[in-house]
């Protein structure tokens, strides 16, 4: 049961993390309509992945691994773009958003960005859903011990969704400026992981052919088959034995973007009180 639990947990994490943060953001913004659209997108993504798995099973073929890897690599890159856009946008508009929220003003300026968030939630779930659907089907269809294998897989995905929900709950409690900084930082790490995952997938697909030497052995930290290992792989994209390309891309993204997000914003209009100095 534990082996499939761990895989289910890892597969479900990234998607539920991104969906949780987007949902918390939309709730904070009182964007009920966009939130509803987001849920429709998430359900659609889950439905598509389930359909894909069932159809493939019915025709008795597995998804060719190279094409699957290439597709996941492309979706990962699109997600990196989406997350980066969201992080930069949050940083730029956090002040303005806060004002609008306080005055309950509805803004047409943000409509396009809401659209981007909804699409991003859809893609995040779609990307992980493909692997999860293939894996779930194997757990239920070809296992000689369906009860243990299937229960583990379902529980793993359920716990991943639970963690996403906890992030969402936490996200709607904390105040908006902290929310931007905290989720911005989390999203930077997720996006760095996605970038490194994209490198991993493209290497598997045979598209990426440079930097494939092993950079280091992280298997003591990200040991496959353990819960902490799947948390690190699922959220941050850490591989047990990453290649040079995976590590280089991770650092090249995470370091400058973290600095950008965590750097205190200089007050523009009013000089004086630094951010965070006001009484809570």
């Amino acid at each position: 049961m534990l082996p499939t639990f761990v895989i289910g947990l890892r597969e479900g994490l990234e998607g539920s993390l991104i969906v949780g943060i987007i949902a918390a953001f939309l709730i904070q913004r009182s964007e009920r309509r966009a939130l509803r659209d987001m849920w429709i997108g998430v359900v659609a993504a889950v439905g598509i992945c389930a359909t894909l798995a069932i159809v493939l099973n019915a025709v008795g073929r597995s998804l060719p691994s190279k094409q699957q890897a290439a597709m996941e690599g492309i979706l990962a890159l699109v997600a990196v773009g989406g997350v980066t856009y969201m992080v930069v946008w949050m940083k730029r508009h956090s002040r303005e958003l806060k004002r609008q929220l306080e005055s309950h003003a509805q803004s047409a300026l943000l409509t396009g960005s809401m659209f981007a968030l909804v699409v991003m939630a859809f893609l995040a779930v779609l990307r992980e859903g493909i692997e999860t659907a293939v894996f779930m089907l194997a757990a239920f269809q070809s296992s000689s011990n369906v009860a243990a294998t299937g229960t583990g897989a379902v529980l793993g995905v359920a716990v991943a969704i639970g963690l996403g929900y906890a992030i969402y709950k936490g996200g709607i409690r904390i105040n908006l400026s902290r929310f931007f900084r905290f989720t911005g930082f989390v999203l930077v790490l997720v996006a760095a992981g996605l970038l490194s995952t994209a490198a991993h997938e493209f290497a598997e697909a045979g598209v990426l052919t440079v930097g494939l030497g092993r950079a280091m052995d992280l298997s003591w930290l990200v040991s496959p088959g353990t819960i902490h290992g799947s948390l690190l792989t699922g959220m941050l994209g850490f591989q047990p034995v990453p290649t040079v390309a995976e590590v280089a891309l991770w650092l090249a993204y995470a370091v400058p973007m973290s600095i950008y997000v965590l750097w205190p914003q200089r007050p523009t209009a009013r000089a004086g009180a630094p951010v965070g100095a006001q009484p809570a």
Partner: protein
Amino acid sequence: MRIVRHGLVVAAVFLLASLAWACGGSPSSDAIEVSLTDGAITFSGSSEAIAAGDVAFSGTNDGSTVHELELFSVPDGVDATSLDVSDNVADTDAAGMDVIDEVEDIAPSTTVELSADLEPGTYAFICNLPGHYAQGMVAEFTVS
């Protein structure tokens, strides 16, 4: 709702493209059974005289932990069972071995299918999760 429709169009295209790939080959008749245990990869049936063409394998994880099944082509003069191990994994790149196909995340007591169009030559199945190759999870075979 416009948003959702856009998403659905993208997804439908993706679904059809995947199916087109998946249905490309014709299903093979008898799959060659491969067994993965903690420390070995073995052919359950006869591994001799695998004929070139579309070969189907069915891999069963008879071990206690998660394994993966990677199919490599092995160049002449390379012994896939004695590769250099660096950072806990077999250095297949240095040996000039190419991945033909692979299935990751095979849970214990689960069977997966893997098929490939193989030309005559030497091939190897490897589980390259950290430490697993060194424990003996490699099997070489020839296609004639």
